[in-house]
């Protein structure tokens, strides 16, 4: 546990990607085999079970601290984080323990069937052996709220530099439905034929925004154009008679889209498709906010399914007849995809993303102006002879979005509104990534519905990290698409740019903070705009 706490502390102390990478490499070079697997599990955004109810945990530990409840509450208000408060107010550890992270996770697991009284005793018993730093990570594990601020890319690069295995291969091996119970570290990282995860998706290939005009990309004949659909990027997998649907956030969302169940029969064995999950009716996509009405719902009522039916607009194929065909060219993959769609008696659930015919960039520009009518965000440009890549790699896939400018930003501060909204947090400050740091870039007030405002308000109140007068620092968790009209250089702003009329275009509930845009992206917009 000491090593793991140390890993956390060291990562917490730096904002530099290269440093984070080497810290993780160092950890993996020397940590316990089982611990490594646990850490990979946690770092890839997977969550542990919730072992205790938060109130219960708080009450028990406060009792053990010997402090009056009100003073513990005051301490919590000052710290803003329960796990940290507890780790700070408890008496110092009586003896140090050399137990591993895995030991403590198993320890927690073993409490499952105990009585409340025994659970409490065991918990306090554990706390007596842990230092302040260890307690903090221990509590984070217990409460299931573990966020470490390390991107998947950093972890992959760290493992790659340690093992000399290509990052792409590691990225793929880390995906899917594995857990520390069904695989060991060696097998996961070095690959093992005896281990098979039939649900394992391929890493998504991601596009870069077109810089300026696409004419710089070469001749139109080299590029396949499609609409950029405004839904949720998804991967549909059919293997061994089972269907799996993954979202771009690497979440298994099969159950959220019962409409896709019929694809289990329709799709041939060994098929993996890349496309967009989108609300679709009468041969036309519906705006994103329709899809939003059903994301996050636990119960999909017949009413919802009727009002917001989804389809899968498919634009690529990574696996065909059980073979990984990502190395084939786009044109060849598309041929296979078209054939598959013709051969399968495809229902309106599976819709091919049409290829846009055009002769010149000017012609395409005209077509692009009609994006809105097609309920699309613009045009995708994909190099016809390119393989299907891994992650965000510049060169082969470009997104040519329509105006206004938009970026996905993370909310980091909130402030109460005025007048009618004086009791609600309605004014937000948004930030973009600068390396691993979030840098504020715009404030925005409007653009959300009243229902959404209430939801954000509740989030702010329960996720306040610090209070500074009327301003609250909130957990950087919510991602919003911010639209704005103009962009200019600014010395006054931390980000170095000022944007005109920023507003919330929509709440991206489907995005994680790590997926928000970078400062570099917006600076590019700036440079384009200057030219």
């Amino acid at each position: 546990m000491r090593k793991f706490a140390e890993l956390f502390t060291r990562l917490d102390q730096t904002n530099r990607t290269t440093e984070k990478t080497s810290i993780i490499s160092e950890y993996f070079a020397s940590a316990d085999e089982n611990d490594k697997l646990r850490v990979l599990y946690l770092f890839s955004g997977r969550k542990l079970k919730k072992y205790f109810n938060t109130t219960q945990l708080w009450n028990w530990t406060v009792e053990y601290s010997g402090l009056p409840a009100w003073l513990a509450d005051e301490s919590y208000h000052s710290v803003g984080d329960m796990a940290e408060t507890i780790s700070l107010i408890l008496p110092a550890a009586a003896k140090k323990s050399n137990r591993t992270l895995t030991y403590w996770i198993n320890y927690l697991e073993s409490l499952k069937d105990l009585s409340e009284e025994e659970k409490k005793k065991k918990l306090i018993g554990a706390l007596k052996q842990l230092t302040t730093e260890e307690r903090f990570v221990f509590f984070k594990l217990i409460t299931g709220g573990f966020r470490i601020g390390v991107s998947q890319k950093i972890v992959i690069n760290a493992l790659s530099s340690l093992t000399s295995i290509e990052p792409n291969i590691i990225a793929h091996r880390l995906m899917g439905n594995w857990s520390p119970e069904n695989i060991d570290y060696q097998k996961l990282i070095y690959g093992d034929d005896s281990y098979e995860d039939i649900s394992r998706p391929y890493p998504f290939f991601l596009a870069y925004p077109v810089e300026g005009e696409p004419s710089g990309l070469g001749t139109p004949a080299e590029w396949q154009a499609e609409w950029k659909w405004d839904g949720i990027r998804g991967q549909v997998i059919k293997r061994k008679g089972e269907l799996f649907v993954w979202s771009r956030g690497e979440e298994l969302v099969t159950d959220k889209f019962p409409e896709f169940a019929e694809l289990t029969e329709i799709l041939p064995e060994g098929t993996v498709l890349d496309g967009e999950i989108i609300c679709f009716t009468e041969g036309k996509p519906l705006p994103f906010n329709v899809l939003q009405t059903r994301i996050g719902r636990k119960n999909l009522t017949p009413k919802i399914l009727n009002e917001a039916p989804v389809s899968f607009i498919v634009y690529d194929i990574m696996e065909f007849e059980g073979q990984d065909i990502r190395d084939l060219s786009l044109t060849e993959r598309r041929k296979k995809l078209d054939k598959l769609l013709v051969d399968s008696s495809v229902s309106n659930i599976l819709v091919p993303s049409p290829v846009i015919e055009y002769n010149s960039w000017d012609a395409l520009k005209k077509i692009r102006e009609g994006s809105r009518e097609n309920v699309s965000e613009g045009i995708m440009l994909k190099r016809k002879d390119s393989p299907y890549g891994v992650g965000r790699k510049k060169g082969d896939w470009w997104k040519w979005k329509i105006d206004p400018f938009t970026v996905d930003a993370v909310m980091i501060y909130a402030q109460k509104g005025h007048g009618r909204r004086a009791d609600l947090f309605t004014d937000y400050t948004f930030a973009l990534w600068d390396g691993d740091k979030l840098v504020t870039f715009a404030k925005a007030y409007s653009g959300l519905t009243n229902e959404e405002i209430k939801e954000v308000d509740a989030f702010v109140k329960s996720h306040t990290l610090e209070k500074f007068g009327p301003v609250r620092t909130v957990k950087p968790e919510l991602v919003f698409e911010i639209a704005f009209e103009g962009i200019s250089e600014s010395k006054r702003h931390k980000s170095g740019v000022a944007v005109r009329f920023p507003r919330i275009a929509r709440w991206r509930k489907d995005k994680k903070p790590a997926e928000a845009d970078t400062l570099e992206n917006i600076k590019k917009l700036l440079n384009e705009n200057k030219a």
Partner: protein
Amino acid sequence: MNSKLLKYTKQGIYCPQADIYIDPWGNVDKAVITHGHSDHARRGAKKYLTHRITVPIIKHRLGSDINTKPVEYGEVISVNGVRISLVPAGHIPGSAQVRLEHKGEVAVVSGDYKIEDDGFSAAFEPVKCNTFVTESTFGLPIYKWKPQKEIAADINSWWKANKKKGFASVLCGYSLGKAQRIIKMLDTRIGSIYTHGAVHSVNELLVKEGMILPETRLVTKEIAKSDFVGAMIIAPPSAMGSTWLNKFEPYSLGYASGWMNVRGARRWQAIDIGFALSDHADWPGLNDAIKNTGAESVYVTHGFTSVFVRWLKEQGIDAHELHTQFKGEQVGTDDGEAGN
């Protein structure tokens, strides 16, 4: 204030019998100054009585024209029957608790204090008294300091690691007290130590007063960028986020302050590392200090005042809040700016 010796006035804490103020604000005749930080030592008094080491500090900061009377710890000054003396507060060099005694009644105004002996400032001495005036800058149970030795080891290993990477180490802390304490904690075998001008001028004052500090160099334009590689640079907190830091690239930025005990405060500052090194008493320190005075009445000035008073009352101590203009340790500014 319900004390035989002390009254609370618009200008601050006042002893009518001696007609003297302790760390006042506004215009007064006579002031006793606990220490040189700017929220305690302000302009406006006709005469300043303070520890010998504090004299050059306040002259440097308030102007050389002020009228000062230096005293040593333990030296007794009698004013209209009130025996006034200074007792080490352990906060920074020259810092003192002001002890006032009249007709068997003893009051102590402690200013800012810390319990742990930093091996540099004269160590805190508990004083028995009837009335005790205390700070509560870190008056919450979340503030418990690690021993100085451990923090010194943390700082030195951070420095070493930076040096290995070819980075400079920039460590920020109050230029009066904290900076010198850090400098004394550094392992000079690792590399050279540079100082920001604000720190440098305080160092000079203290060295003149006979304090011993390891060799440091003032950062100037003439120094080659390459000289900073692997070096330690000590700067005031106001340097954080300023362009002054550019010349040390690549560097790792640290901040030494009690507030750094909490992760949120560390993350709020754009720093690489925070060291919870404070010149104030932590939670156990405050509680021990108060207990050891045996005081019947305790007045709590700056900090988590209301919380700490409530806690003391629950411990059976007659405690009261005192709304002074003292500020304790501030985040992100230097001690010279805090009182402005």
